[in-house]
C-alpha cells in the first residue's frame, strides 16, 4: 500500500500557500479488477467534500501493487494555462 498526496498549487497561477491543485498517487489491492474509471470514481467519492469545496484540479494515479512495482514513478502534471477563477 502506498499513498502520496502532492500539493501542486505552486505550479499554477494562484496565490502562494494555496491548496487548490493536487496530484494523488494511490496504490491499493482494492483496485484489482477495476477499470481506471471505476478507480478514479472511488477516489473522487472519498474526496467528495474537498472537491465540492476547495479543490480546483485533481490528478489521480490509481494503481494496484503489481502495477506500482512496475511503474514506480510519479507522472508530471501539465503546466498551468489558466488563472484564478478558471
Amino acid at each position, binding site marked *: 500500500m502506498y499513498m502520496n498526496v502532492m500539493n501542486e498549487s505552486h505550479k499554477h497561477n494562484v496565490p502562494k500557500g494555496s491548496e487548490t491543485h493536487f496530484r494523488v498517487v494511490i496504490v491499493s489491492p482494492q483496485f484489482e479488477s477495476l477499470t481506471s474509471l471505476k478507480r478514479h470514481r472511488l477516489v*473522487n467519492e472519498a474526496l467528495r467534500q474537498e472537491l465540492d469545496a476547495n*479543490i480546483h484540479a485533481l*490528478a489521480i494515479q490509481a494503481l494496484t501493487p503489481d502495477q506500482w512495482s512496475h511503474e514506480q514513478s510519479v*507522472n508530471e*502534471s*501539465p503546466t498551468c*494555462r*489558466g488563472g484564478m477563477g*478558471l
Partner: protein
Amino acid sequence: MSTNTVIEIKDIQQFNKLLLRDTLIVTHFMAEWAQQCLQINDVFSELSQNKDYSSVIFAKVSAEDIPELSQQMNVTSVPTCILFSKSKQLSRIEGADVPQLTQQVKQLAFKLGSNVGITSNASDHNIDERLKTLINRSPVMVFMKGTPDAPRCGFSRTLISILNEVNANYDTFDILSDEEVRQSLKVLSNWPTYPQVYVKGQLIGGLDIIKELKESEELVSALKP
C-alpha cells in the same frame, strides 16, 4: 430566415408577432430627425449584413409613429435598442452606445445561436436534455476549458494534443462559455473536473485516464465509434 435588410415595423401587431420568434431580435426605436438614430441605423445595416448574424432579425420602429408601442415598451427617449427572443426582453441600450450595442448583439447571438443549434425543440429548456444532446453531438466529445486552438488550461491542452497525436476525430465544447453546462455536467456524470471525454455518450474519464490508455496503446480502440 436570413435577412440582409433591416425590417421596418409599421404597426403594433407586426411587432408583437415578430417577438414570438425564437431567434435573436434586435429592435431600434428611433426618430428620423435624431442624429444619433441615424448613427444606430448605420450600425444596424452593417450588423444585418454580417454573416455571423444571419439568423438575427434587425428591426426599426419610428417611435413617434406608433406611440402605443413606445409606451408598451417603456421607450422614453431615442435611440433606444431592445433585444428580444421568444417574447422575453434580454437587453436594453439607451442612447447611441455603439460598443455596448455591438457587444450585446454578439453575446446574445452566440448564446441563442448555440442553443438553437443544439436543441431541436427551441422551447425545451430542460438542462438534462440539453446535456444529453451535447454529449452525443459527436462519437467522441470533449468538454474542455477553451478551444482546441486556444486551450485555457494545461490539462485541456495536453488532452487535445494527445487526441491529435492519434489522429482522433472529435468535437469539443468550451465549458468556460457556459456556466450552466459546466456545473450541471459535473452532476450528471458525477465527475468533478474538466476536461471530460465521452465516447458514444459514455464518460471515459479525464486527462489521467486518456494518458493511461495512450500508454497502454488502448486509446485508439477506446475512441472508435
